[in-house]
């Protein structure tokens, strides 16, 4: 009987304690949200919230939160609350709290108390050591709540008592005037509050789980979920922001209807080379049913709406050139490495070289292109479309090779054996068994790789060049410009050896340029945002297609 009552009492206490811990988690979340709002200036730190001045209110909440967590820890230590703590909070938590308290006491000692280097170092070491002792030595319920609660409590007290008021500011001593920094409450308070909320929220989640294995599980999962959530949130905000800023200039003047768009002439000319005889000619004008000035125009003083068509054309040609170079080379090498070569020194060297090539910085590829390619296409070194294509092709190559190789390695050996058992030659096996089975992986890799190089700017600065404001007739017209000659090298194409522009490069140029009135661009800022949006859409659609292809094939082909 007694046992039953006792359990009931303990259960009652446990549920109250659980409610306290859950409330602490909720309060941490609220404080975190308030800190974010203050950081984005949605919440005024000088104003009032619910009738109370904001800074003392936040301070008071932090003090309450810290007290609640410490109370829970103490209750658990005195066995008033039934928990299941480990013997210690552990070295990881100990190290983290040591670091935090080292910084806090160090800053207070050096800046508020004005101690010298020796003084603040001693104080900081003392603070860090104390935090370590409190965290790592006692049982887990004290070790993980007291340092966290004390942190929130002391930060809260400073804000509550006006130690950091709306007019507070701080410049670290020892910074020269030309490189001075001043910290204001509008920066410090959101960061401090958000940080304390995270630390206390973690401690409260542990407490909610009753410490021990389950408590740690909850505390860690809280932080990890928050991390994943914020990564996605950052991504979403970035993309949404560019869309919001860029959509107006991009959509300006769009009209849909028969005959409103520009005219494209489709022409076929059959000419005998070297003899200026025209055998046969056909030309037909197509009028587009859509007029989309930002996409279809260049930059010119005559335009109503200026656009980025030449840059789009440049990007398309770059991608075509890079793919034409990298895909055959990469897939061919992957075939050799997986199907022909025996694993040994040679394949290892190639593997290391490919991975090294993959991580080589893009600007180094640019330097290489400038030194290796530019002097060899034209008599005097000149930036050109061809050099840009080849440089980007070199960048794409390791990506294609790595993904193609992975795709081929994942084709089961039974496939090859079955083909070989039919008496088919090696190459036939590769062509009709391995390549088709590996195709989805290769295609996905190529698409994702193209997405990466389509947004590459740094190599183009060094190898391709091009202007800032480009008119429509400066758009590269590669197909029309092939010329046959009787002397070597027999085929030339002046358009390929000419500088031209591309979307990422043009955005860079627009950032550098301050004014664009002479080219008919009234508002540089909107033009930049429009260009950024077009670039983002082009690149992200490659990614979207690549990822969608992969999902599709993954569902269809599962070898395992």
């Amino acid at each position: 009987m007694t046992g039953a009552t006792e359990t009931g009492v303990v259960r009652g206490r446990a549920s109250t304690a659980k409610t306290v811990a859950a409330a602490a988690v909720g309060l941490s979340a609220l404080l975190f949200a308030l800190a974010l709002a203050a950081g984005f200036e949605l919440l005024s730190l000088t104003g009032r919230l619910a009738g109370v001045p904001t800074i003392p209110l936040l301070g008071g909440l932090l003090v309450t939160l810290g007290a609640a967590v410490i109370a829970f820890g103490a209750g658990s230590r005195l066995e008033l609350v039934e928990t299941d703590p480990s013997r210690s909070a552990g070295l990881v938590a100990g190290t983290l709290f040591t670091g935090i308290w080292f910084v806090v006491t160090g800053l207070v000692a050096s800046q508020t108390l004005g101690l010298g280097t020796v003084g603040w170092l001693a104080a900081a070491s003392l603070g860090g050591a104390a935090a370590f002792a409190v965290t790592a030595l006692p049982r887990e319920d004290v070790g993980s709540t007291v340092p966290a609660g004390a942190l929130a409590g002391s930060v809260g007290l400073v804000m509550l008592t006006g130690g950091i008021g709306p007019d507070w500011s701080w410049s670290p001593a020892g910074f020269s005037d030309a490189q001075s920094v001043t910290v204001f409450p509008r920066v410090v308070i959101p960061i401090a509050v958000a940080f304390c909320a995270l630390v206390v929220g973690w401690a409260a989640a542990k407490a909610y789980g009753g410490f021990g294995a389950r408590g740690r599980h909850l505390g860690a999962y809280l932080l990890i979920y928050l991390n994943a959530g914020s990564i996605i949130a950052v991504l979403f905000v970035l993309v949404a922001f560019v869309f919001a800023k860029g959509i107006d200039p991009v959509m300006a003047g769009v009209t849909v209807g028969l005959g409103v768009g520009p005219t494209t002439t489709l022409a076929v000319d059959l000419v005998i080379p070297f003899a200026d005889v025209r055998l046969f000619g056909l030309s037909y004008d197509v009028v587009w049913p859509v007029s989309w000035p930002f996409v279809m125009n260049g930059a010119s003083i005559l335009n109503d709406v200026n656009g980025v068509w030449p840059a789009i054309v440049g990007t398309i040609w770059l991608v075509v050139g890079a793919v034409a170079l990298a895909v055959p080379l990469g897939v061919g090498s992957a075939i050799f490495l997986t199907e022909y070569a025996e694993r040994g020194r040679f394949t290892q060297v190639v593997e290391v070289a490919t991975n090294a090539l993959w991580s080589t910085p893009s600007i180094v590829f640019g330097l290489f292109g400038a030194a290796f390619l530019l002097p060899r296409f034209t008599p005097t070194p000149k930036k050109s479309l061809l050099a840009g294509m080849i440089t980007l092709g070199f960048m794409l190559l390791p990506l294609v090779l790595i993904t193609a190789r992975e795709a081929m390695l994942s084709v089961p050996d039974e496939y090859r054996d079955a083909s070989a058992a039919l008496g088919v030659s090696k190459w036939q096996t590769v062509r009709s068994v391995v390549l088709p089975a590996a195709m989805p992986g290769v295609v996905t890799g190529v698409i994702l790789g193209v997405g990466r190089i389509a947004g590459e700017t740094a190599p183009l600065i060094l190898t391709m060049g091009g202007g800032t404001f480009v008119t429509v007739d400066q758009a590269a017209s590669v197909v029309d410009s092939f010329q046959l000659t009787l002397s070597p090298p027999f085929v030339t194409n002046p358009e390929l050896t000419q500088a031209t522009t591309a979307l990422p490069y043009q955005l860079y140029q627009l950032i550098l340029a301050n004014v664009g009135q002479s080219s008919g661009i009234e508002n540089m800022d909107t033009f930049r945002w429009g260009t950024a949006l077009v670039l983002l859409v082009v690149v992200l659609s490659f990614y979207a297609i690549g990822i969608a292809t992969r999902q599709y094939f993954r569902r269809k082909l599962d070898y395992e």
Partner: protein
Amino acid sequence: MGTTDDATDWQRHANRRLATAREFVAETETDALAAGLVGVLGLLGGFVGFLVTSQYTSVAVAAFLAAVGYGWVRHRELTARAVTLAMTVSTSLILVLILAFIVLEALPALRYESGELLGVSVPGLRMFTGTDWNPATNPKRFSMLPMIHGTVLVTIVATLVAGPLGVAAALFLSEIAPPRVREFVKPGVEILAGIPSIVYGFLGFAILGPWVSDQFDLVGQGTYLFVGIVVGLMALPTVVSVAEDAIDSVPESMKSGSLAMGTTDWQTMTAITIPAAFSGVSAAVLLGVGRAIGETMAATVMLRNEPTIAEPLYNVFYGFETLTSVIANKYGSATGLQESALFVAGIVLFVSVLALSIGSQLIEAHMHRKLGGSE
């Protein structure tokens, strides 16, 4: 004794190679050998012709193509093997060519900035002992230290951002997330890698930069701290995907063994998964560091572009120049020695990232051996 053994060893090796080659020649038909010879000569000729800017390059390439075409019709099996081998060799050659050409272009600056060390003249020494970047007036000085300082600060901040967040996200993706959430988060991380660096840079330049200058009351615009944060965000996907692979490669049997003992998921992760995958995860962080070092555009448009060293050294609120941004900024307007000095910056970048890449590969290979992976 040892040397003679080595010599005979080497000779035996060479003899065996020679014998295999002879056997190959004897077994292969004459026309295939001839076509192969033409092909090799054509390829070499094309390469040399390209290097010396000969107009006959295309002739050599045409000869190579003709040889391949002939071989394709008559000896498909052999040709496929030879052509894919040639492709593999040329892919690996690119790395050598990159190093050769940037070193070649960097030589004048290295020679100009020679310094004495223990009585020996070391090319380029002064670039790493002085702190002056002064390309305009005599005596011209091209110190790399301001840029190295900037790159180090940016990389430290970026690693602090990308390392912990990336590893946590990788744990989330491979161990924690329910399948439906994973399907949503994983492409999200990939798309984060897909946003072009110039767009990140533009956001940093147009929005973040002015905001930071206002918040901290700075003189002018450009801080290492926020460049580091942006670069860290860009290096994050690299860390996530490589660390996720490493965590995934921990055998399921190890984890289920632990779970069968009645541990929580998190205990299994800290006690089994993370220690087993530790080397792979550190390789991921190393690769992320490499990405951060090499990131160009965000640094170029967000920094001040004047090679100076911040005072005091840890003042991350003022950002001047990194190794990458100095190249992107000054190439084109620079000539002569200054242009050559930019190639020195390229060498420093290339070599440090190469070392990181090879280091992380060694760590990964070690991990695969330890876990008894499939290969």
